[in-house]
């Protein structure tokens, strides 16, 4: 099949750019580190993967129940379980290279210094794209704290920028009353791209009545899945009103129609997260569907389709 969905994201101020085979990327935490999904997806149609969030040191994540299913989504409180940057470089990176899988290295820290070290390490290892998680709601300190204060976010982005020459993406949190100053802080700090949204804070509760007694279960964490799509679309539109750098949209994408809606809101590429759990092949299935739509309806390419959706 002819591929018409090659995607290039460009920061027009600096001409920093990155290209992917397709605009569909699998979201951090839903796809592992490298080839875990190889048997379940058509890698030729996968734009890139965003790796599991990597911290300086290995993390075991949170104790207790970590996931909670919802109608149209889920709640997670994994707590950034990951192998740490050293093991990633040593054990995971070689396979990404060998299999020729494009990826964004997703990083998270609990201090500005953590982020600088991680960014420098990515730079030294010629990692082409970095997705900075400043929006994980599931760790006790750090991460989200950087993502909700425009001044701190600006400082953080500047410092990462100084230490990293590749394509710099900052992943924003929706857990704010106004996302615009945060998006601006990223752009002014030197980010090449914004990805949004991370999970929304939420609480899942299950109450069962059995043998004259109520049994309760609750999980507090980040909500994802199609039920957060309206919030994601809203936030992306807000971000696009204030920045000119590209935006990778995510939050409940499941169908071709969802892709169109995200494009209209302002997304230039997409990440798919929770829906991978429902259907491990979804990212490549959707890329194929998008490609077929472009060919069938005689659009020149993905950029042409985006223009038409926004301007028709």
């Amino acid at each position, binding site marked *: 099949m002819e591929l018409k969905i090659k995607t290039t994201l460009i920061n027009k101020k600096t001409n920093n750019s990155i290209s992917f085979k397709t605009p569909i990327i699998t979201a951090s*935490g839903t*796809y592992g580190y490298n080839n*875990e999904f190889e048997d*379940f997806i058509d890698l030729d149609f996968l734009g890139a993967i965003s790796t599991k969030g990597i911290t300086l040191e290995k993390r075991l994540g949170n104790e207790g129940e*970590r*996931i909670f299913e919802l*109608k149209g989504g889920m709640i997670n409180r*994994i707590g950034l379980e990951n192998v740490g940057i050293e093991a990633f470089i040593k054990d995971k990176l070689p396979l990404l290279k060998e299999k020729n899988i494009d990826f964004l290295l997703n990083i998270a820290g609990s201090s500005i210094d953590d982020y600088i070290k991680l960014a420098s390490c990515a730079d030294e290892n010629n990692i082409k794209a970095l997705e900075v998680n400043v929006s994980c709601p599931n760790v006790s300190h750090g991460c989200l704290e950087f993502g909700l204060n425009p001044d701190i976010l600006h400082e953080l982005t500047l410092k990462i920028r100084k230490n990293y020459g590749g394509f710099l993406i900052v992943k924003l949190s929706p857990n704010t009353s106004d996302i615009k100053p945060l998006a601006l802080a990223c752009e002014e700090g030197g980010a090449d791209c914004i990805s949004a949204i991370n999970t929304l804070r939420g609480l899942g509760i299950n109450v069962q009545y059995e043998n004259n007694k109520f049994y309760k279960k609750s999980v507090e964490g980040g909500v994802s*899945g199609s039920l957060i799509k309206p919030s994601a679309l809203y936030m992306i539109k807000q971000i696009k009103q204030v920045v000119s750098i590209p935006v990778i949209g995510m939050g409940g994408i499941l169908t071709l129609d969802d892709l169109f809606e995200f494009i209209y809101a302002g997304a230039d590429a997409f990440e798919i997260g929770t829906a991978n*759990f429902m259907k491990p092949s979804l990212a490549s299935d959707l890329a194929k569907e998008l490609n077929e739509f472009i060919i069938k309806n005689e659009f020149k390419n993905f950029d042409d389709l985006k223009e038409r959706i926004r301007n028709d």
Partner: protein
Amino acid sequence: MEKYKKGNFKGKINSSGQIALDTYKLEIISDLQGAKPGQFISVLCPEKTFRRPFSISNFDSKKHLLTILFKLKGDGTNYLKNLKKGDDIEFSAPLGNGFELLNKNSLLVGAGIGIAPMLFLKKELDSNNIKNYLMGGFKSKEEVIEGSDETVIGGSVLDNIEKIIDEKQIEIIYSCGPLIVLKLLSQIAKKKNIPSYLAMERVMACSLGVCRGCVIKLLKNNEEQNASVCKDGPVFLGSEIIWN
């Protein structure tokens, strides 16, 4: 043991039916080439965020026929219950590590619907001429799933287990069932100084080992570590599991 190609499969229901109280059996024809006892499939259930995991209860390699057993629990199992012969079903398989077959006098314990993978294991042990004894434990007569060498109804399947281990000179235990049964079995195995291989159950999101949603804690080489039930398991050495 040979490894079977993993992937997404689109199968068709070959037969479906009730086999005990709230308990059903589905036979699925697909391109799946094979599976090990203890491995599972995860089934796409419409409208549900998570695919539902089911232990493989039998695999007929000549007919490419895979069997699962399930007990009605919620929306996922209600969807499966309503599938009829000829209906489509989409699933990923074969997932998880499965049981290693060892040439040892084996005791198999299936508690409730946990009997499902034990029936497959028994078949494989039999065909490898490995001596084994399967005990099935059920809450009531109506819930009994056939196929065990000994069926315990009411009470606990573990009540006479130590006597059986001694009498039958059991060298290894395999089990699947509620957490409490597995925990007690691991303690009995420790006391008898024999290994126990236990198939664990957790709610799973990705079922491929990446999301870390279904992890349990293991103690290996004196170090506490996480293991995903879906990929590192579902079968674990009882002596390594940290029970809460």
